[in-house]
C-alpha cells in the first residue's frame, strides 16, 4: 500500500501547490475589484514589467510547459472515457476481456496523471514568474473559476484513485455499478476541468464580457461563454478521445512487437485494434468540429482568420493537411493489413488498390496549397501565384469535398474489414449490397455537387454553409450502412477473427498515427495561440514583452518537433514502466 499512498500524497501535494499559487491571485483580483467597487482596465505594460531570469527564455519555458501539459492532459482525459465505455460494454456483453483491456488502459494512463499535474504546476509557475500582470488580470476576471478548477482537480484525483484501486474489489454485483458510477464522476470532473481551462484560453483569443479597455462587466458567465468557448470545447473533447485512443493503440503495438507467444500477440493485436477503432471513430467527426472552430475564428476576426489560413500560418495548415492525410493513410493501411485476420479477407484484397487510389487522390487535393511556392520561371509561365488548374483545389470547398470522400472511403475500408470474417445469409444480401453501393454513389455525387455549386458559383455565405449538408451526407451514409450491415449480418456465417495474424508492419502504422496526432496537436496548438500575435488578450491587453513577435514557421515547427520527441520519449518510458509494474504483479 505504501507506494500507492505515496503517489496519492504526491498528487495531492501538487494540487495543493497549484491552489497555493492560484489563491493569492484570486483574492488580490477579487479584493481589488471589491475595494474600488468596479473592475479596472487591462494593464498597459512596458518591456520592463516582465520579470527576467538569466538563461531562461520565458516564452519557450511557458510554450513547452503548456504543450507538455496539454499532451498529457489530452491523454489522461481521454483514456477514462473509453475505459468507462469498455467497462460498460463488458458488463452488458458479460465478456471479461473488455474489463481486462479497460483495466490495462487505465494502468497505462495512471503514470501520465502525475506527469500531467507536474507539467500543469510548471506551466502555472512559468506564467506567474514571467507574466505576473497577465495572470493578475486574468485572475481578476476568472478567479472564481480558478478556484473551481482546483476543486475539480481534487474531485478528479479522488475519483481516479477510487476507480483504479477499486477495480478489483468492486468487480461484481451492485458494487460493479457503483464502480461505473465512480468512472462517470471521474469523466465528468475531468471534462469540466477542461471546459474551465478552455474558457481562459478562448477568452484570450475572443474576449467577451469586457470593453475595449479590458474593463470587466462583472458577469463571469459573459467571459466564460465567449465566442470560441463552445467550438473549442467540442473540438478538444473529440480530439482528446482520438488522441487517447491513438496512444493506447501505440502501447498495444509496442507490446505486440515484443510479445513472446501467440496468445499475448493475439491479446495486444485485439487491444491495438480496439484502441485504434476508438481513435479513428473519434477522428471521423473531428474535421467538422475543426471547421466550425475555424469558421468562428474567422467570423470573430477577419485578421485572425486570414492569418490562420490565408496568411502567415497558411503553410502550417499545409503541414497539418499532410499529417492528417498521413494519418488516414496509416489508419487505412492498418485495416487493409487486418483483412487477413478473417477467413474471407483474401477476397477483398483486390479492392485495396482502388481504395488507396481514391484516398490518395483526395489526400492530394486536401493538401494542395492555394498560394504556391514558385520559381521565377514557373511564376512567369503561370502569370501569377495561382495555377489555373490547381487554384480552385486550394480553396475550402475542394478540401471539404476531399475530406468527406476520404472519410467515406475509410469507412468503406472498415466495412470490408468487418466482412472479412462473415458472410451474410439473408435472402436480400444482394439487394443490401446494392443499397449500400447506391448510398455511397449518391452521397459522393451530392458532396461533389454541394461543394462545386455552392463553393464556386455562389457567395461565401452559402459556401461555408454548404459544408453542413456535406457532413450530414457523410454521417447519414455511415449510420445507414451500419444499420444495413447489422441487419444483413444477423445470423450470418461468422468465423472467429484470427487475432495476431497481422504483419508487424501494420503495428508501425499505429505508431505513425500516435506520432502524427501528437505533432498535429503541437503545430495547430501553436497556430491557434499565435494568431493573437502581439496580444496577451486579443485587442484588449497588449503583449509588450521582448518576445512579442511571431517566430518564423521553421522555428515554430522545430520547437514543436523537439517537444514531440520529448513527449514521445516520456510516453515510451511510461509504457516501459507500465510493463515493469505488470511483471512485478505477476511475480506476486
Amino acid at each position, binding site marked *: 500500500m505504501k507506494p500507492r499512498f505515496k503517489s496519492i500524497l504526491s498528487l495531492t501535494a501538487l494540487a495543493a501547490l497549484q491552489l497555493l499559487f492560484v489563491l493569492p491571485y484570486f483574492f488580490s483580483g477579487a479584493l481589488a475589484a471589491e475595494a474600488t467597487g468596479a473592475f479596472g482596465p487591462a494593464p498597459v505594460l512596458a518591456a520592463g514589467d516582465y520579470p527576467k531570469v538569466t538563461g531562461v527564455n520565458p516564452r519557450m519555458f511557458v510554450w513547452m510547459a503548456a504543450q507538455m501539459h496539454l499532451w498529457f492532459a489530452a491523454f489522461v482525459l481521454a483514456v477514462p472515457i473509453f475505459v468507462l465505455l469498455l467497462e460498460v460494454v463488458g458488463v452488458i456483453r458479460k465478456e471479461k476481456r473488455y474489463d481486462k483491456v479497460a483495466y490495462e488502459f487505465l494502468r497505462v494512463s495512471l503514470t501520465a496523471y502525475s506527469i500531467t499535474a507536474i507539467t500543469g504546476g510548471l506551466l502555472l509557475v512559468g506564467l506567474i514568474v514571467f507574466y505576473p500582470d497577465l495572470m493578475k488580470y486574468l485572475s481578476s476576471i476568472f478567479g472564481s473559476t480558478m478556484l473551481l478548477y482546483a476543486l475539480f482537480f481534487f474531485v478528479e484525483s479522488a475519483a481516479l484513485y477510487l476507480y483504479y484501486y477499486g477495480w478489483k474489489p468492486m468487480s461484481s454485483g451492485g458494487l460493479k455499478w457503483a464502480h461505473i458510477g465512480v468512472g462517470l464522476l471521474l469523466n465528468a470532473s475531468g471534462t469540466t476541468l477542461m471546459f474551465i481551462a478552455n474558457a481562459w484560453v478562448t477568452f484570450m483569443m475572443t474576449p467577451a464580457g469586457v470593453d475595449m479597455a479590458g474593463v470587466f462587466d462583472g458577469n463571469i458567465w459573459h467571459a466564460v461563454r465567449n465566442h470560441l468557448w463552445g467550438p473549442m470545447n467540442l473540438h478538444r473533447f473529440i480530439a482528446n478521445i482520438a488522441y487517447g485512443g491513438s496512444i493506447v493503440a501505440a502501447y498495444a503495438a509496442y507490446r505486440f512487437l515484443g510479445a513472446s507467444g501467440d496468445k499475448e500477440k493475439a491479446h495486444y493485436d485485439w487491444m491495438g485494434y480496439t484502441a485504434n477503432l476508438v481513435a479513428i471513430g473519434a477522428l471521423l467527426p473531428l474535421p467538422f468540429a475543426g471547421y466550425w472552430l475555424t469558421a468562428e475564428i474567422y467570423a470573430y476576426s477577419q485578421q485572425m482568420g486570414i492569418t490562420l489560413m490565408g496568411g502567415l500560418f497558411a503553410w502550417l495548415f499545409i503541414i497539418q493537411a499532410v499529417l492528417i492525410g498521413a494519418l488516414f493513410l496509416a489508419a487505412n493501411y492498418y485495416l487493409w493489413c487486418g483483412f487477413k485476420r478473417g477467413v474471407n479477407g483474401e477476397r477483398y484484397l483486390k479492392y485495396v488498390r482502388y481504395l488507396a487510389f481514391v484516398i490518395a487522390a483526395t489526400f492530394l487535393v486536401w493538401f494542395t496549397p492555394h498560394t504556391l511556392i514558385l520559381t*521565377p520561371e514557373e511564376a512567369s509561365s503561370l502569370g501569377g501565384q495561382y495555377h489555373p488548374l490547381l487554384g480552385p483545389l486550394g480553396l475550402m470547398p475542394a478540401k471539404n469535398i476531399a475530406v468527406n470522400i476520404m472519410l467515406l472511403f475509410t469507412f468503406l475500408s472498415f466495412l470490408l474489414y468487418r466482412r472479412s470474417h462473415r458472410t451474410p445469409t439473408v435472402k436480400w444480401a444482394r439487394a443490401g449490397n446494392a443499397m449500400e453501393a447506391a448510398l455511397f454513389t449518391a452521397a459522393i455525387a451530392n458532396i461533389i455537387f454541394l461543394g462545386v455549386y455552392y463553393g464556386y458559383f455562389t457567395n*461565401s455565405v452559402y459556401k461555408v454553409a454548404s459544408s453542413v449538408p456535406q457532413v450530414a451526407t457523410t454521417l447519414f451514409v455511415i449510420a445507414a450502412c451500419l444499420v444495413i450491415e447489422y441487419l444483413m449480418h444477423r445470423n450470418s456465417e461468422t468465423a472467429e477473427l484470427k487475432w495476431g495474424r497481422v504483419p508487424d508492419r501494420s503495428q508501425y502504422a499505429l505508431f505513425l498515427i500516435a506520432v502524427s496526432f501528437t505533432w498535429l496537436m503541437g503545430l495547430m496548438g501553436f497556430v491557434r495561440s499565435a494568431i493573437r500575435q502581439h496580444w496577451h488578450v486579443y485587442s484588449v491587453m497588449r503583449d509588450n514583452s521582448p518576445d512579442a513577435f511571431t517566430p518564423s514557421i521553421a522555428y515554430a515547427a522545430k520547437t514543436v518537433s523537439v517537444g514531440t520527441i520529448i513527449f514521445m520519449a516520456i510516453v515510451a518510458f511510461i509504457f516501459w514502466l507500465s510493463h515493469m509494474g505488470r511483471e512485478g504483479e505477476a511475480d506476486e
Partner: protein
Amino acid sequence: MRLLKFALTSLFFYLLLKAPGFFWDKPIPSSLVSMYMFFIVITVLLVMTITDEGARGLFAPIRALVEDPSKKLVRNAVFVILPLAAVFLAYDGGGLKATPSELRATHPAPPPLTRGYGKTFDLATLENPFRKIEKEDPEAFKSLVKEGGEVYFKNCFFCHGDKLDGRGHYAHALDPKPLPFTGGDTIAQLQESYVFWRILKGGPGLPREGGSSISAMPAWEKELTEEEIWKVILFLYDYTGNTPRSW
C-alpha cells in the same frame, strides 16, 4: 518484377503531373510535384506491401542485390555508382542554380485598424457605406457602380485589365503579376473592408509576408477619395458577378 511495377507506377504518376507543363505551358510547380510524388510513392508502396508475399516480392531484388553472392559484380557497381551520383548532384548544385522560390502570401492578414484621410478605420466593423443602397434604391446603386467603373478605367485597368482578369497593358512587365478579380478565389473570398484596406494602402502597406517590397501596387489614398475607393469596390464585385464575403 514487383519492384519494376512499383517503379513504373510511380513514373506514370510523375509523368502525369508533368503533363500540364509539357503540353499546356502551365507547369505544376516543382515544389508541389515533390510533395505529390512523396505521397504517391508512399501510397504505391503501402498497396504493394499489404501482404507478406507482396512485401517479400517487392523487396526481393534489393535483398538479392545485397545478400546474393552471385550478384557481387552488380552490387559493387551499384555501390560505386550511387555515391558518385550523389557527389555529382552535390557538385552540380541541383536546383540551387535557380533564383530562390518566393513564399509570398497573396492575401496576408489585415491589421485590426488602419489610418487614412485623417481618421482611423476599424476593419472588423468597417462596411461599404454604399452597399445598403443596392436594395434600397437599385437605380441609384447602378449609377454608383458606373461611377466606380469610371474610377477603375481611369486608374486601375492599366494593370488589372479591361476584363478585370489581371492582364492589363502593364501586367506583363510586373512581377508579381496584378491579381485578377474574376473567378472565385480572389475578391470573392474577401470582405469589402479588406479590399478597401488593400486599395488604400497598396503594396507599401502590405505586411512582410505579403511581399510589400516587391508589389508595384500604389497606395491609392494619395490619389483617390474615400468615396471613390468604395465605389470602385462596388464596380469590382458587380462586374465580376462576385458577392463580398459577409463573415
